[in-house]
């Protein structure tokens, strides 16, 4: 979680920021799934034996969240591509210096 956030904040490359975001989100997904585990639990399938089973709801929530995450990453990558086409670089510093020049 922290690793992903660290990448987002420190890296100068927009592509790396998107990847950092994906790592950050995946970490949160894993956190959610870990919440669902019940000790000695099995998969929540009805059987004749009385079993403790893990909570399926967080998994379902995370399925939704994964879809959202994929959409976010896809849009982020599409934007990076467009930025590259317009600026011919995806390094934050270079783009900032380009913008400074064009403002003058």
């Amino acid at each position, binding site marked *: 979680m922290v690793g992903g956030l660290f990448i*987002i904040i420190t890296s100068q490359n927009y592509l790396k920021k*998107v990847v950092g*975001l994906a790592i*950050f989100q995946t970490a949160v997904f894993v*956190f959610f799934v870990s919440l669902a585990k019940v000790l000695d639990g099995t998969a929540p399938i009805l059987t004749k034996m009385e079993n403790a089973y893990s909570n399926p709801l967080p998994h379902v929530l995370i399925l939704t969240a994964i879809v959202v995450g994929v959409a976010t990453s896809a849009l*982020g990558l599409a*934007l990076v591509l467009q930025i590259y086409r317009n*600026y011919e670089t995806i390094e934050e510093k270079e783009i900032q210096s380009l913008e400074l020049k064009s403002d003058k």
Partner: protein
Amino acid sequence: MFNIFLDDAAALVVVLPLLISAIIAFIPSKIWPWIISLVTLVLHLVLSLHLLKEISISGLIIYEFGNWEPPWGISFKIDGVNIGLQLLFSIFVLISTFYSRKIFLSEIDSRDSGKAYSLWLLAIGSLNGIILTNDIFNLFVFLEISALASISLIALGAGQNRKALLAAFNYLIIGAIGATFYVIGVGFAYAMTGTLNMNDLVIQLAQYSDGQLAIFAGMSFMLIGLMVKAAIFPVHIWLPPAYSYAPSAVSTLLAALATKTILYFFVRLLYEVFIIYPSYLSLFLDFVLYPLSLLAIFIGTLIAIYQDDIKKLLAFSSIAQIGYITLAFSLKDHSGITSGFIHIFNHALIKGGLFMAVGYFAILQKDRVTLTSLKGFGYKYPITSFALLICGLSLIGLPLTNGFISKLYLFQALYTNQMYFSIALVAISSALAVAYFWKIVEQMWFSEIKFKSEKEDAYIYLPIWIITVSVIVFGIYSSTIIEFSNLSADYLISGYQN
């Protein structure tokens, strides 16, 4: 036949725009996407009015999706708190869609019209979902749909200025971090209570009356995530570039409604759910939200004074205005919440009107609107300029406009809470708002150059004037907005006492 639709009105106001948005993306025509969107939003308004009628009879609607009873299924809740916002939302999106056509035509490739309106309706549907949902995880989904739709809309501004791409990218990264923080909070809350339904959450949380660290951590994560999304002061940095480089029609929609709906949910979470830990709530409100609001008001206004680009100026003034709203909400009593809701309504109208007028100027001169480029516009385009003037005066809070009502109630609320320091600060920043708005007026009416008036487009100035007239009408006959806000505050406070 029609009754079937009315029974499901609560779901349809969200589902209808989302469904239509999926269809019109594939229509290659220039004009049909706009017409279909307009028809959809008229239906949307009819459904909202029907909901208002239902609410005035029953006072509460809980719509269960797929007939799964809450707390198991997802539910929408409509009550006194959100019905006013729902109506405002419905009316404003209709007006801004009417306004948007000419603006879109001149700012983006006309072949993309269908896709642009598809995203437009997607944003509208999901923002409406934020208003109605009663499920904290469902909120996250709507939050992300609306964020992704608005990011794509902002990126459409790249045809005008490539900086729009950078603005959209920053919004994406910061917004996604905010949303993910929110999800972490939801995870903590779910781990402790096993529920996601807001009403059930209150009941389940009550068993930890002494408070557990995990719950406080979860609450803090949720609040921080929402603060990022609502652009509350220190985490607002994505907002000014996003609003100023987006296509003008998009800035109108986002500035008027996007942050407002999230602020509304923020308040609902605070006063409906987290209120069961009064000590935590007052800690958050007094030592986090209250000082941050004051900083937002002051710094937002100061930065706005030094802006040359008008859309950026308006965006920074939005930061300050969000500060007024959160200041009102941080007061913890009926008068504070009422004045917060009044300002949500009024500011949506004012900022909407201002962004519409500036957006029209931008397409008239085919360039970004800066202070110097506005020279003599008061004579060149008198109709739109006059609307801009009225909305601007309302932003400052001049009597006879709805901005005055907001300020009046805010001062009253602050006075009853004996917060004299904040009264002084709000007064000073209102005076500073005169400074930045006067700069615009000076350029528009008091510059050396005189222009003959030119023809203006009725399709564009009509919606601008509808907003402007409502700004004046709600300034004189303010009872409607005040009643709705009172109702919202009543409902929130009554939950507090139970």
